[in-house]
């Protein structure tokens, strides 16, 4: 069995930064990533798409630099198109599936840098073809240079909604409408969170996006409530309180949440983050989790954006080296200082953004009983409410009752909504309703891949 000092899961900003730092400090590093090229979702396919005029500035510049540094670093075993499906915590053994073959590797420390996923937006009609996540459209742009044809509606809120609008408009998509679902008074609430001065660079970036979107003719409708997608066999229109518009593509976005699937499966301690309305692992200032073998870096430890992710990646790698006695404590503190400063600066605007873009209640708990919550097993909000009345106190019992979370996505799309619906129905906080406890395999693999029998033995 091959052995590494540090196994990093994910080759996004946090994973790449951690790998580069760890290799620099003399650790042997393995990076396991599901994608074919490094970059994560934010810098997805940056090597191929860096020249696309729709994706300017930060994407090719910052993303390109991170990937180049990662590619250039020596002593990093980089496994693209590879999936971690099992972790033996006690033995420090990872099971990784590559090209249909599962391999066990040993690691002294595991760093989860699995990033974020878009927050599921369970509005009526969100399962119709033509409705997708805003992040999905951005991935199509990055990986295939593709843009939606015909009228496009972006519905939701958050920095990515504006960034995507601008990128798609630059690429010639449209006509385009942004339906902003933010609440009245969110701005004033957000301003009280402060951080505007320290975060002024990010703030300026945001404001310039808004101006560019306007220049391209983006139509903006504010304070949209009770969004619904309509159409037979495909989305044809979007309705909300007091409005309706025809569209061919509906892109939903209510921010991103940490990908905690593996961490929860490993039983890491998590806490409910009320400001970001999501679960996040309990971490120390170095990213160390409640289990001595595992650390978390990047958005998977709490949403902070790519700059924060890079800083946490470095810090987690420095901590790994210290734990393995490759770095004296004093040197560790000195080396960490610039990243701690960068992290603080990158996170300064976060409380403002969290408040400004807090999802409306109906985006978290669909009021209409007929709305599908679990896309795999087609379980509705009404069924979950009934189960809660029958006595289900959390998403694990609802899973047993209704199969919500038993499909191939393993509850990644429905788990949070199911808990929110139960919490509302039973009048308890979401934290008390709890979260799904996933299990290995963290992603599906075939029985044959698991069995790994020599072909001659089978037939």
């Amino acid at each position, binding site marked *: 069995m091959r052995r590494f000092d540090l196994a990093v899961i994910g080759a996004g900003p946090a994973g790449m930064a951690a790998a580069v730092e760890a290799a620099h400090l003399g650790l042997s590093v393995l990076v396991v990533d*599901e994608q*074919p*090229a490094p970059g994560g*979702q934010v810098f997805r*396919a940056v090597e*191929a*798409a860096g*020249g*696309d*005029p*729709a994706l300017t500035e930060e994407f090719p510049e910052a993303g390109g630099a991170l990937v180049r540094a990662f590619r250039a670093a020596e002593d990093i075993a980089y496994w693209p198109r590879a999936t971690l499906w099992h972790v033996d915590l006690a033995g420090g053994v990872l099971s990784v599936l590559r090209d249909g073959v599962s391999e066990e590797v040993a690691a002294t420390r595991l760093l989860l840098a699995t990033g974020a*996923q*878009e927050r599921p937006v369970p509005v009526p009609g969100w*399962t119709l*073809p*033509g*409705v*997708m*996540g805003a*992040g*999905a*459209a951005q*991935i*199509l742009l990055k*990986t*295939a*240079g*593709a*843009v*939606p*044809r*015909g009228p496009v509606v972006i519905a939701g809120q958050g920095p990515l909604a504006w960034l995507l609008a601008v990128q798609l408009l630059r*690429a*010639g998509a449209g006509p385009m409408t942004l339906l902003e679902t933010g609440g009245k008074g969110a701005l004033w609430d957000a301003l009280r969170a402060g951080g505007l001065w320290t975060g002024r660079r990010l703030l300026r970036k945001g404001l310039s996006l808004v101006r560019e979107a306007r220049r391209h003719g983006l139509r903006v409708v504010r304070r949209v409530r009770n969004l619904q997608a309509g159409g037979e*066999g*495909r989305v044809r229109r979007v309705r909300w309180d007091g409005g309706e518009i025809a569209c*061919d*593509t509906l892109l939903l976005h209510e921010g991103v949440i940490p*990908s905690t699937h593996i961490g929860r499966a490993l039983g890491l301690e998590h806490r409910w983050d009320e400001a970001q309305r999501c679960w996040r692992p309990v971490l120390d200032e170095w990213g160390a989790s409640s289990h001595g073998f595992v650390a978390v870096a990047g958005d998977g430890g709490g949403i902070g954006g790519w700059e924060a992710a890079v800083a946490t990646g470095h810090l987690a790698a420095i901590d790994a080296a210290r734990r393995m006695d490759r770095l004296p404590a004093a040197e560790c503190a000195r080396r960490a200082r610039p990243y701690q400063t960068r992290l603080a600066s990158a996170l300064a605007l976060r409380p403002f953004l969290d408040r400004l873009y807090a999802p409306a209640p109906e985006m978290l708990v669909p009021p209409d009983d007929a709305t599908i919550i679990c*896309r*795999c*097993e*087609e379980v509705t909000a009404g069924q979950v409410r009934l189960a809660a009345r029958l006595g289900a106190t959390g998403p694990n019992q609802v899973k047993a009752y209704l199969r919500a979370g038993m*499909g*191939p*996505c393993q509850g*990644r*799309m429905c788990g949070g909504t199911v808990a929110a619906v139960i919490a509302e129905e039973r009048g308890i906080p979401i934290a008390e309703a709890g979260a799904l406890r996933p299990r290995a395999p963290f*992603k599906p693999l075939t029985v*044959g891949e698991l069995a790994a029998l020599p*072909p001659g033995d*089978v*037939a």
Partner: protein
Amino acid sequence: MFATRPEARPASVEVFVEDRPVMVPEGASAAAAVLLAGIPAIRETPVSGAPRLPYCMMGVCFDCLAEIDGVANRQACMVMVTPGMRIAPQRGARQARPGLAGKGA
């Protein structure tokens, strides 16, 4: 429906979506090819038969399950296109292939 922008990313790989040739850029996923082909659904759910198209494009939602090169229920957004790849919608639950026994399956 989605379209490529040849000026930014040349579409150089030919794949077949429901037997129709589609040109897509290198590095695109099979799910992207389906969206570029413009077919109405990449799968029909095994529960109600409802049509779906890819939703997340990043390996989370499993709404892009398709039959790729004869293998059912593959997560199309995680499979990169290769020349000549054949992609067909996954209609309902997959069919197991007991006939394959003895042929090295």
